[in-house]
């Protein structure tokens, strides 16, 4: 049986030979053994370095803006196509961009990968008690090799936090699918952490979030990684009016996080990329999750994470609840 990487190379070769695409976006090995970084290939030779495995990967959907925005806006009169490796969560991001009219569906070739959750190397290291030298992944287990001992860990233990609440295990529509659907682990919407915070008193909540927000270095990584944050001119960058000032103060941190979270309210697809890229580990998922939870509860939306043509805050019903 061919592995997904081999199959991907075969398909990419075919796409480049038939001159169907100008660019292929995938992953390659990063600076450390287990890190994966985005890779771009303009011909087949460049695509040979690309790999697919189950280590934590960055999101690729945001790169489509750079590549295809001008084509979609009609500034460049070429029908250039870009192929992109797509997991279920990436698909939600791509869908977001299509719904927002940033890119066009016909310019994208979706190369789908079924996914059962990505492996968090940090968690594996923690369980092993040292830096793993070798990690092998099979169907159900992860085998981490340390200096002297090996440890077999079940996949469910080392999967990324965001993958536990995954709402789409494989892209809903794809042009090329690299493997059959995997037997996927049962995943549940889990709002228990949010409910815990809701139960605190207002003072405790304020102190909790102050502690979290005070760490923020305002690097804007959460904004840059998010596919819902696709405004051409971001409110944080403009100085007239200056909604976010440059002062380093708790109040500004609150301002920043409030604006960021509320700007993606009803648009966030629960991919958890903001949380993953955060250098100081602010639980941004708890902010976005709260908004999703409330949208589902207040406006009878079944799944707030799935992008729809009309956003929950872009429509209204006459019988919306009345209590504040």
């Amino acid at each position, binding site marked *: 049986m061919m592995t997904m990487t081999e199959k991907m190379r075969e398909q990419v070769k075919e796409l480049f030979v038939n001159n169907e695409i100008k660019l292929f976006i995938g992953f390659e090995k990063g600076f450390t053994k287990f890190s994966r970084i985005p890779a771009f290939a303009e011909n087949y030779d460049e695509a040979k370095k690309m790999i697919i495995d189950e280590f934590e990967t960055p999101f690729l959907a945001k790169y489509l803006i750079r590549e295809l925005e001008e084509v979609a806006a009609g500034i460049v009169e070429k029908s250039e196509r870009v192929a992109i490796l797509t997991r279920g969560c990436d698909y939600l991001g791509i869908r977001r961009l299509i719904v927002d009219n940033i890119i066009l569906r016909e310019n994208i070739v979706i190369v789908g990968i079924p996914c059962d959750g990505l492996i968090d190397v940090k968690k594996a290291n923690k369980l092993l008690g040292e830096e793993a030298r070798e990690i092998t992944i099979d169907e159900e287990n992860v085998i981490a090799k340390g200096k002297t001992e090996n440890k077999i860990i079940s996949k469910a233990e080392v999967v990324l936090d965001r993958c536990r609440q995954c709402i789409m295990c494989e892209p809903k529509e794809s042009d090329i699918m690299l493997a059959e659907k995997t037997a996927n682990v049962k995943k549940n919407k889990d709002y228990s952490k949010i409910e815990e915070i809701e139960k605190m008193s207002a003072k405790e909540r304020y102190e909790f*979030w102050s502690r979290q927000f005070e760490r923020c270095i305002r690097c804007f990584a959460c904004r840059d990684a998010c596919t819902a944050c696709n405004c051409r001119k971001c409110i944080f960058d403009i100085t007239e009016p200056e909604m976010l000032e440059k002062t380093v103060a*708790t109040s500004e941190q609150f*301002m920043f996080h409030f604006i960021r979270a509320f700007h993606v309210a009803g648009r966030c697809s629960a991919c958890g990329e903001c949380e993953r890229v955060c250098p100081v580990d602010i639980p941004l998922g708890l902010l976005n999750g709260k908004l999703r939870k*409330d949208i589902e509860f207040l406006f009878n939306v079944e799944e707030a994470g799935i992008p729809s043509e009309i956003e929950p805050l872009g429509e209204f019903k006459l019988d919306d609840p009345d209590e504040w």
Partner: protein
Amino acid sequence: MSVKFKPNIICFACNWCSYTGADMAGTSRMKYPATIKIIRVPCSGRVNPTFIMKAYQKGADGVLIAGCHPGDCHYNSGNYFAKRRFLLATRFMNYIGIDAKRLRMEWISAAEGVKFARVMAEFSETISELGPNWRAREEV
């Protein structure tokens, strides 16, 4: 010697109903507390939740948003959108620790000068009881 706390309240009033309602209250010589500062907006749908955060940051102790009654909006549907937005924003502010009691939304029509004066007095009373807001407020 203690000085009685005088709250700072920002009221975003819609041009067509609530601001005219405030006018009505004024021309009818009704009294309402001087703690309220009214900012006129074209429609309650114009009020961005960011404005509320900004108000708290710059020293407001309470924020009141007043708009037309549902169905009466000058722009047909602005207040329905506003309603959805503030249903979410109030809960979210409460979640990050800013007291939800400090935010209030009211529907006040152009003829309801009495209601305007009553709501302002009530809200001013509530905020006086809650005391000054230090959360998410700029340090000076």
